[in-house]
């Protein structure tokens, strides 16, 4: 494998050997290593010295179930710190097959204008893309697929990334050619936009499959892993209900964000639950699918296609975080409205968590009534118009809080909380506070832990273990749900890595990778000026009780500061 380094000003590509210290990393861990090694920590995230890095995970490239994921990262224009954002789709598979250990985009063009970066085994080419400027991803992706072939992988931005909004992500085309697998968090779409790139096309045609050092050992490990995954009782739950199953769970714990994090239970939760969604989609038929894979080879298939009453697709997929932030958080109890909001933010190439949280702040500021779905849609369309208010919304919850003088803003390190109120799930609150990424559900949820989530005792340890596992999975390229299989057969991680690379790693490799990743991320943040006071939830969450348990976040600060000691 090689490092593909693209200079976006000179429009050149160099392919370099992988430095020794990068070889045993992939995905999130490799991003952190590259950032520490190469990024000036004080760089302007949208300036020429920031780099946007794409890296498939260590196990990506073999259609191993739920393990073909992609990490994208750089210095975040939203948090000002380290950023990794993870997505499914087919980009990871194409990158690994092209032999890319990482793709590093450097510099920025000296002239305005938009480009498609085309990458195949011959190298790189920049094609003019001004005709795609301003298009949403649902309009741009079919044109790109028609131009470059519909088997390509494509990463692209929408108008949000073009406007360099800090709520902008990078969308990836999935196996069904739908451009909605998003590296959502932290404003990475704005970084791609700052480099004048509307889309990157990855074309693996003509390439051999990625090498495996010991094929029989790989096959044996793959078989053991698949057996553990398919035998796990939760796999069926994910297949039938997807992540939307979380809605009733968080509501039962009093932890579902409701009316801008002012309540932990939503009276309309049943209506927007995974159970209600499944019933609705089965009844509607047509384009609707309750069980759907986002990556080739996935056996869990937790995704869905949400169709309307007319049988036509509204959006794919509808996930729990969007239900939480754009549903209960806005007092909206209609799945159809949530799906339409989801389509709008997807098309703009924006993070539905960040925009949902920003809309919640807008509602606190009186710009929107809670429960007003049409009003929420109008505000999202304001983003598309490029108005000052629209741009403020597209820059996220923290920006809206500043603009309108709202105190109750749900962010850590400037990034919006996902759909678990940390006052009622305190271990997740520890994760939000201490992860180098800013508040993020992919950095270590703790809701599965069989503990009293309202008790501050012991939450730091639970969060630490979850954070290390998640950073490990993100380095492997494994979906969090692959973790059920790996947890049931942990030796398969070691066996797969050793079979693929001819290594001799130990059975503790997941935690080792996770810890190394987080230490590198913390080091980047330290150099970028972060201190212990950045590892805190918003102060109002330590003061303002959350119904129905009237809980505040009360894990002691000294414990937060000692999490990695």
């Amino acid at each position, binding site marked *: 494998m090689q490092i593909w380094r693209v200079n976006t000003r000179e429009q050149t590509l160099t392919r370099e050997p992988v430095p020794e210290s990068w070889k045993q990393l992939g995905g999130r861990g490799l991003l952190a290593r590259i950032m520490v090694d190469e990024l000036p920590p004080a760089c302007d995230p949208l300036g020429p010295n920031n780099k946007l890095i794409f890296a498939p995970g260590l196990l990506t490239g073999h259609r191993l179930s739920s393990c073909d994921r992609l990490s994208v990262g750089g210095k975040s224009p939203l948090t000002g710190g380290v950023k990794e954002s993870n997505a499914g789709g087919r980009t990871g598979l194409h990158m690994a097959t092209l032999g890319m250990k990482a793709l590093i985009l450097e510099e920025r063009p000296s002239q305005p204008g938009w480009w498609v970066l085309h990458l195949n085994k011959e190298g790189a080419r920049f094609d003019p893309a001004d005709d795609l400027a301003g298009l949403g991803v649902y309009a741009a992706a079919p044109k790109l697929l028609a131009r470059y072939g519909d088997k390509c992988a494509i990463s692209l931005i929408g108008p949000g990334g073009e406007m360099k909004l800090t709520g902008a992500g990078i969308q990836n085309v999935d196996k069904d050619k739908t451009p909605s697998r998003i590296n959502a968090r932290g404003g990475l779409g704005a970084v791609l936009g700052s480099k004048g790139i509307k889309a990157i096309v990855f074309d693996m045609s003509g390439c051999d499959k990625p090498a495996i050092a010991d094929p029989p050992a790989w096959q044996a490990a793959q078989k053991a892993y698949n057996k553990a995954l398919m035998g796990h*009782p*939760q796999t*069926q*739950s*994910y297949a*039938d*209900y997807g*992540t939307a*199953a*979380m809605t*009733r*769970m968080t509501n*039962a*714990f*009093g932890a579902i964000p409701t009316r801008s994090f002012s309540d932990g239970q939503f009276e309309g939760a*049943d209506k927007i639950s*995974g*159970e209600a969604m499944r019933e609705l989609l089965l009844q509607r038929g047509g384009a609707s699918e309750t069980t759907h894979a986002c990556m080739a080879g996935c056996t869990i298939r*937790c995704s869905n296609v949400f169709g309307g009453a007319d049988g036509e697709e509204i959006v794919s997929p509808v*996930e*729990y*975080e969007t239900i*939480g932030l754009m549903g209960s958080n806005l007092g909206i109890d209609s799945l159809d409205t949530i799906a339409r909001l989801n389509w709008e933010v997807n098309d703009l190439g924006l993070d539905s968590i960040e925009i949902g949280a920003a809309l919640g702040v807008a509602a606190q500021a009186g710009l929107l009534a809670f429960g007003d779905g049409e009003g929420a849609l109008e505000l999202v369309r304001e983003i598309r118009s490029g108005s000052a208010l629209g741009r403020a919304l597209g820059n996220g919850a923290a920006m809206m809080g500043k603009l309108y003088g709202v105190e109750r803003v749900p962010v850590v390190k400037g990034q919006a909380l*996902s*759909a678990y109120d940390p006052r*009622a799930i305190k271990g997740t609150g520890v994760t939000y506070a201490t992860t180098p990424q800013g508040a993020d*559900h*992919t950095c270590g*949820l703790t*809701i*599965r832990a*069989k*503990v*009293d*989530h*309202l008790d501050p005792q012991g939450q730091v340890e639970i969060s630490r273990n979850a954070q290390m596992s998640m950073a490990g999975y993100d380095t492997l390229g494994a979906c*969090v*749900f692959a973790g059920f299989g790996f947890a049931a057969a942990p030796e398969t991680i070691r066996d797969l890595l050793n079979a693929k690379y001819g290594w001799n790693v130990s059975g503790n490799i997941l935690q080792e990778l996770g810890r190394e990743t987080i230490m590198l991320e913390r080091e980047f943040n330290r150099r970028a000026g972060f201190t212990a006071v950045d590892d805190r939830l918003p102060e109002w969450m330590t003061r303002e009780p959350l119904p*129905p*348990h009237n809980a505040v976040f009360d894990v002691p600060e000294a414990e937060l500061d000692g999490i990695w000691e």
Partner: protein
Amino acid sequence: MKVTVHLHTILQRQTPEGPQRRMDVALLSGSTLADLIEDLGIEMPLEGMLLVVNGRTAPSNHILNEGDQVHLMPAISGG
């Protein structure tokens, strides 16, 4: 005594009465969560479930009280 049981996702299909999302269940005084799960005929192993009483995680030997809101959930996580 009576408790209200909320069944999550695939557990809804595992009751003797057919798919049920929410049901009132009569129990003998002093019954535990484990007794309730056995009465309902839920087949998922206990280690795969989260047991929640009135919004708080509870062990399977937790003794139930009149009017408790009980949630039985496959132990999933994610978003």
